[in-house]
């Protein structure tokens, strides 16, 4: 298979005869502390009474579909009606690869311990650290986020969530200029022009189109009454079903946005090609936008993480602000993890900042590039880490991961992950949205109730309960030390 990226190298994908790299080998390459993690431990399933639970919200992506019907017999989830393939897989396999007991690391082995011992060791690590990092959140409820932030404040550490490398630039753009936003219901009932820009919900938010674009709204017919435009660096699957596809050169979206603003303000565009897009097409698109009744730009990481970062988003916000001089227009950031928005929100009401919050001076500060989790790890600034419900080893750059192999790490998670191989203490937690209840925020900031439909495994607590116990211990130990 060959992918051709405009203006970049050609990339070839070929079949190989080499043996598959083993997990142990991967862990060795990453210099993990433990090479054998006891994965393959499932919750034993027992069939039993059949139950159907309705209006369950899906704890995967920020689409937060809250209309799932989940069928359970005993503690076995047998059916998920309404969820996409990802959702079906998460629910039906919720019991697989679960951490069922607390562990602490002794040399290169993980040893089963009691919850008391694990909490005690974790509290020791945190209290003895000069500048600990708490990272993760967002794949859990806002209650957990609130406790995690409180813990960071008590420890005078730093606390960050994954918007640090996804929609952080959206927050930065709002800090600079504001923005014009909307919600699903308004899109369904009013939007006659939807532009997907650097986003591909067919793969990322699978139910998004059938939920928001296809249905008939109160003031608009279904798909046929809405114009769909896709702007991307390559012809995505989504582009094939769009009314108009515009291919932009990688990393140069901001030029196209600026040109659209110029067209809107009747300024001459002197070049005949903007970021790979013919000038006439720029005028055509600007015209389409200004003459829409209710337009929405649903943008993804193609805009936020394309090199100039928040400059693109800032320009995008200004574009929609300008468009509101002519008509109704808004953006919708296609957020990723199901509660990444909630972790921004909780962080804001507690600290005034949406992510990358530092408490070294006892109050909140946010320096992107300094107090962002990735930078704190790469620069070796933090001397301990508490990871809540996340797998940074799977997503962070090598240098950041390497630092995790050098400092004590505590992991709170329902499932085994690459990061558990870097842990000194592991505390299992229940799965939010399946075994633990709470709130999560959809990509359009609508708060959704996450249900508890099954009990967590015996002896396993919800992550907010664990954090609460950890806070009490940290307070006691710090008071004892003083």
């Amino acid at each position: 298979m060959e992918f051709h990226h405009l203006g970049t190298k050609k990339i070839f994908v070929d079949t190989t005869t080499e043996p598959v790299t083993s997990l142990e080998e991967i862990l060795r390459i990453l210099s993990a502390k433990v090479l054998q993690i006891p994965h393959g431990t499932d919750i034993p399933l027992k069939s039993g009474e059949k139950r159907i639970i309705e209006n369950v919200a899906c704890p995967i992506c920020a689409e937060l579909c809250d209309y799932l019907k989940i069928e359970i017999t005993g503690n076995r989830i047998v059916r998920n009606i309404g969820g996409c393939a990802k959702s079906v897989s998460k629910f039906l396999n919720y019991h697989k690869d679960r951490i069922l007991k607390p562990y602490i690391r002794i040399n290169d082995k993980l040893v089963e311990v009691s919850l008391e011992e694990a909490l005690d060791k974790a509290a020791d690590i945190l209290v003895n650290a000069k500048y600990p990092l708490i990272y993760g959140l967002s794949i859990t409820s806002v209650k957990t986020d609130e406790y995690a932030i409180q813990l960071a404040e008590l420890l005078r550490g730093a606390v960050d969530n994954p918007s640090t490398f996804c929609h952080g630039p959206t927050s930065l753009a709002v800090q600079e200029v504001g923005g014009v936003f909307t919600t699903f219901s308004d899109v369904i009932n009013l939007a006659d022009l939807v532009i997907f820009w650097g986003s591909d919900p067919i793969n990322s938010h699978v139910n998004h189109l059938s939920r928001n674009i296809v249905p008939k709204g109160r003031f608009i017919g279904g798909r046929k009454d809405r114009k769909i435009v896709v702007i991307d660096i390559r012809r995505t699957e989504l582009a094939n079903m769009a009314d108009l596809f515009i291919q932009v050169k990688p990393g140069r979206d901001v030029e196209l946005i600026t040109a659209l603003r110029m067209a809107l303000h009747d300024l001459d565009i002197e070049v005949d090609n903007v970021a790979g897009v013919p000038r006439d097409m720029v005028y055509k698109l600007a015209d389409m936008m200004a003459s829409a009744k209710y337009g929405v730009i649903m943008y993804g990481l193609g805009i936020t993480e394309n090199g100039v970062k928040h400059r693109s988003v800032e320009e995008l916000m200004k574009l929609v602000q300008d468009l509101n001089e002519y008509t109704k227009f808004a953006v919708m950031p296609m957020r990723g993890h199901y509660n990444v928005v909630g972790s921004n929100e909780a962080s804001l009401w507690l600290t005034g900042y949406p992510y990358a919050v530092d408490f070294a001076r006892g109050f909140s500060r946010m320096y992107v590039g300094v107090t962002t989790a990735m930078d704190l790890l790469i620069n070796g600034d933090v001397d301990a880490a508490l990871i809540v419900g996340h797998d940074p080893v799977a997503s962070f750059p090598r240098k950041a991961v390497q630092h995790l192999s050098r400092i004590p790490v505590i992991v709170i998670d329902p499932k085994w992950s690459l990061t558990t191989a870097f842990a000194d203490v592991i505390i299992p937690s229940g799965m939010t949205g399946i075994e633990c209840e709470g709130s999560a925020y959809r990509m359009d900031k609508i708060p959704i109730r996450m249900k508890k439909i099954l009990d967590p495994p015996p002896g396993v607590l919800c992550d907010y309960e664990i954090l609460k116990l950890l806070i009490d211990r940290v307070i006691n130990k710090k008071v004892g030390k003083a």
Partner: protein
Amino acid sequence: MTQILIKNGYVFDPLNGIKGEVTDIAIKDGKIVDPRELNPEEGITVINASGKVVMPGGIDIHSHIAGPKINIGRMMRPEDHYTTNKPGVFPYIRAETGLSTPNVFRIGYEYAIMGYTLVAEPATPPVMTRHTHHELNAIPIIDKMAYVVVDSNWMLLDLITNNDPKLLAAYLSWILKATKSYALKLVDPGSDFAWLLQGRGLDISDELPVYNFTPADIIKSIAEAAQVLNLPHKLHVHCNRLGFPGNYATTLRTMELALNIHRVSEGLALHVTHVQFTGYKGDSWSTLESGGEEIAKELNSNPYVSLDLGQAIPDRAVTTMTADATFQFVLYHIMKNKWYSSDIESDGASGIVPYKYKKKNYVNTVQWVIGLEVALLARDISRVFIATDHPNAGLFTDYPLIFAWLMSKKARKIP
């Protein structure tokens, strides 16, 4: 068991007609009791209040302290946090930040320091109220409650069309219950619907798009439903045309509606909020005058309404935030700075714009006058509430200034 004795203060208790008597107040397990009920053997915390006033905790009827708007304000205004930080004190006092967009801890601490014990968040869209409660829960010390915005909700507009008051009342009572809110709120009634469809606002007798009724009809229908439901605070109204010269006439017409509704329940029928913003006389910004006198006159002759001031504070940098998306769009054009707007699930919309009141600005000075004029000319001050529509016209921490302005001619002199 906690026992507290507050000794020798000048006690004020309007409900029981006590006006400055020097006496003792005893508290046992969170309740006020006869001092003889305290048991000296169990230990009593004695507070010497001699020379001081002892009064019930203050109630703030209108202050934007929780929910999506204030939280976006916090995000949008990092500059509001700079130089305002106060570190926490381990382990129980949390770090504070922000002035016009304070974090939850500063809100709780500052209100408590001012002697306020109950604060109402005055505008939460139904679908967002789960968020509002998250923040209310996080605010320490004080009691909190919220008013739910119901004026541009499509289902509700349909019910008004169908002219079925019983069903309308049932729907509103369900919304109050489902959102755990205290009162019903109208924000520029019907305007968010017009904004959503057409990007414009409405005056009180303009017809809504699609529906063939007016904001006045919305106010009347919901006020009557509130009568049927016998709500303690019937209806909290932010009038149409807020922020436009000449809008005092709309405010007067809104207040008059209280006389015409079918009353089946005790108490006041309507509360008109932040009248300063809707008390503009004159037909342009350059001919602006205070409509405060007319509003006070209407209040004096109309026993069914109460109001709060939305007092403007000169030299105060604020963050304006309302569910009045139309007005915020206008303000954005005046300020030409940051503007945030959001449509919310067919429930309404909102906007946020930073602003600063200047002592030497003519319009701002008139705004300052309106609030004071209303309060000083009102005969029944039990129906006048002091508030700044925090953080729109000023901050709640500015209240002591307003008290001084209202009580002292000298304090009112602009230096």
